[in-house]
């Protein structure tokens, strides 16, 4: 194998196409971002906890002996005053925008490889600034001044060499990447992997390589490429190329786009709907004109208003009307007007109603005109846009809140598993559907779910109410069920008036019950204890009951729940 290796290497390497890159690295970015959000000083000991171990540790904490991967208890023993901060990938990338913007003051385009790591093609920028040293200095200064964090800049040919150079603030001369990498241990390979899954695969590879006795990159890259592919698959091939100082792909540059937003400040706080109709129209036209001028269209619009009391009201609406010329302004006018009317009238949930002082409409998901995301096959069909128009018309007829779009979300009872929003409005479900939700009512789902549970009587054979105690023991098996009937039903009213009902002389505002129906079969009780730590805690026991019809055949099924000593009807399996 060793005698044929050089020949194959000759054929597989050839002229290596690499890009000269500068890499800007902010050490321990997750903890820097978390400390910035928590308002801690840069010299405070802090660490970010994810799962069972620390994922990032600040410099002061590291000096006190806290290491990455430590358990919470060990870390607190090493450094009792350690601030443990939660892990949040969204926060990391959000906060890194400031660093990217600071770097863009110096160079024209950057690639955010991952939060904490920026990649910049160095050739042109270094020529502009005079030398690579000058470029590195300008970058570090800009990030320190504008974003307020320390960073290191390194330059080299190829991805891995540049990332390693940034960690030691080295400027590797052109063509020297292979030598620079040769002595590095194979453990540096995961640094070049930008996604978490890829990094896990590369870490697995590194552990295999170490066990095989390949400790340096020179050892690994000396292997023939074909054998690496055969033994380690695509990940091995990737590591082989990266370890030789080659590039896998050129940097993908982003261009910062200004948000397109229109702001309107009311001269005097607006209280009446009539004032708003004109403003809504005006603002929508302005936004339409601004979008047209920039040659873009937007996928979503964020409507934000400020009230006199200082509350901020914000809602996001989806717009699918880019393909319809001229419809955008009118469409947005309606959205803005509905939104503001809802707030002013106090019907929509949110802060207390108050006069509005300012209104801002921001276009989001901005894409150039003509490059909208269509369906995989074909564009938006005629039926789709017709249905959208129909629903908008009904919204205009009945109000925005009368037409609902529904989504499934996580939850235990059938009522909790639905997220209903006004058609066209966007929000993220608060309960994730992927979570396990132990104690969920099993499928099939009921076809009728009462929005407000109705009282119900579950009786034992003697006619006494069935009770469930704290240990889920039932006082007796359920034998009869009495449902509520419509009070306008004449037969029920007659039965109620009859002396045998036992209600003579009682106040008439109680629920009117139907006849008891025999229970055919039942299952349960299933406990559902939710949110015991909060105000809206609930503790219930659910029962599936199927009823017997008068002719003796099995009939409909119900979902009943027992809470606080009384039974309610949750849903009907009809």
């Amino acid at each position, binding site marked *: 194998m060793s005698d044929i290796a050089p020949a194959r290497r000759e054929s597989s390497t050839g002229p290596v196409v690499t890009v000269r890159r500068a890499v800007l690295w902010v050490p321990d970015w997750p903890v820097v971002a978390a400390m910035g959000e928590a308002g801690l000083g840069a010299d405070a000991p802090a660490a970010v906890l994810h799962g069972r171990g620390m994922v990032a540790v600040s410099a002061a904490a590291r000096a006190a002996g806290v290491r990455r991967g430590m358990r919470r208890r060990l870390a607190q023993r090493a450094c009792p005053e350690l601030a443990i901060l939660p892990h949040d990938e969204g926060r990391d990338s959000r906060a890194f925008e400031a660093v990217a913007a600071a770097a863009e003051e110096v160079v024209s385009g950057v690639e955010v490889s991952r939060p904490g790591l920026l990649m910049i093609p160095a050739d042109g920028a270094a020529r502009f600034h005079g030398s690579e040293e000058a470029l590195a200095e300008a970058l570090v200064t800009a990030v320190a001044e504008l974003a307020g964090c320390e960073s290191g800049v390194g330059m080299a040919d190829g991805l891995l060499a540049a990332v390693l150079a940034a960690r030691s603030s080295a400027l590797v001369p052109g063509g020297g990447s292979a030598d620079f990498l040769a002595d590095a241990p194979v453990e540096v390979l995961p640094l070049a992997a930008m996604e978490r899954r890829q990094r896990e695969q590369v870490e697995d590879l590194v552990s295999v390589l170490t066990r095989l006795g390949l400790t340096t990159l020179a050892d690994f890259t000396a292997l023939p490429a074909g054998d690496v592919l055969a033994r380690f698959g695509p990940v091995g091939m990737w590591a082989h190329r990266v370890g030789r100082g080659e590039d896998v792909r050129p940097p993908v540059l982003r261009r910062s786009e200004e948000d397109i937003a229109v702001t309107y400040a009311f001269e005097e706080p607006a209280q009446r709907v009539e004032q708003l109709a004109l403003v809504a129209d005006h603002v929508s036209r302005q936004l339409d004109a601004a979008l047209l001028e920039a040659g873009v269209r937007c996928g979503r619009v964020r409507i934000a208003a400020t009230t006199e009391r200082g509350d901020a009201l914000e809602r996001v609406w989806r717009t699918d009307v880019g393909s319809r010329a001229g419809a955008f302004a009118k469409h947005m006018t309606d959205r803005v007007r509905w939104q503001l009317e809802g707030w002013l009238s106090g019907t929509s949930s949110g802060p207390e109603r108050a006069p509005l002082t300012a209104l801002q409409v921001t276009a989001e998901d901005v894409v150039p005109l003509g490059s909208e995301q269509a369906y995989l096959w074909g564009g938006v069909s005629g039926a789709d846009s017709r*249905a959208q128009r129909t629903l908008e018309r009904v919204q205009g007829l*009945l109000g925005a809140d009368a037409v609902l779009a529904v989504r*499934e979300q996580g939850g235990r009872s059938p009522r909790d598993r639905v997220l209903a929003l006004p058609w066209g409005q966007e929000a993220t479900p608060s309960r994730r559907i992927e979570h396990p939700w132990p104690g969920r009512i099993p499928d099939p789902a009921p076809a*009728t*779910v009462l929005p407000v549970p109705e009282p119900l009587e579950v009786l034992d054979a003697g006619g006494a109410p069935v009770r469930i105690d704290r240990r889920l023991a039932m006082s007796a098996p359920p034998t009869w069920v009495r449902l509520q009937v419509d009070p306008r039903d004449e037969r029920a009213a007659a039965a109620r008036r009859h002396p045998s009902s036992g209600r003579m002389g009682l106040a008439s505002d109680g629920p009117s019950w139907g006849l008891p129906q025999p229970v055919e079969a039942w*299952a349960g009780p299933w406990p559902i204890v939710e949110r015991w730590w909060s105000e809206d805690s609930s503790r219930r026991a659910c029962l599936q*009951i199927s009823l017997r019809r008068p002719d003796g055949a099995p009939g409909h099924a119900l979902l009943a729940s027992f809470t606080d000593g009384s039974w309610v009807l949750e*849903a009907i399996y*009809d």
Partner: protein
Amino acid sequence: MPIETTPDASQEERLSRARAALKGVETRIGAAREAWDRPALPLTADLTELMPEGLRRGQVVAVTGATSLMLALAAEASRAGSWTAAIGMPTVGVVAAARRGIELSRLALIPHPGAQAADAVGACVDGMDVVLLGERLALSDANRRRIGARARERGGVVIAAGEWPAAHVRLDVVSSAWSGLGAGDGRLRERELTVAVGGRRAGATRRVRVLLDGDVGARWTRPGARIDVDEEVA
């Protein structure tokens, strides 16, 4: 005038082959039954016994006694790309709809149309393919006739809960039996509906047994036919 280049025998053969092919196509798609100008919306395989010709466009289906039957009727069409609106059904179980196959991104709920029910339903029949109507909508008989005419014109399907004068198809759930529950054990598993199928065109009322929420686990214990039809005069 076309030039005759082939002998007569071969022409005969070609003609008979063409006729056979046309006949095959007709029996496959059921074009010979009646000339409805638009293709029917698809229907779940379990429900083809109820409506063998599929969910024809422009018709009104009145369903009494089971919300899940309404959802099941709309499911396959929604999966195939139709838009669905549910008007005046504040209690409809959305999870059940999704499990039956209704695509929630193409479903709009109008739970309380109030006094403007006729306008809202009219707009929806214009723009949506399948419209589900609840029982307690403020619709007069004249409104209902107008909605039916509009659906026929636009090619939508109206599936209404409760009575509907002159509905094309009436599906009355005579009985619905759940199985799977015991005395404190088990869970709801399978349901058998007995549906009386009638309507404007149908002569006699048929009774059809339909199994909804078929459960593979429950099936092991109960051998025999899944769906059987017996004709009887109502």
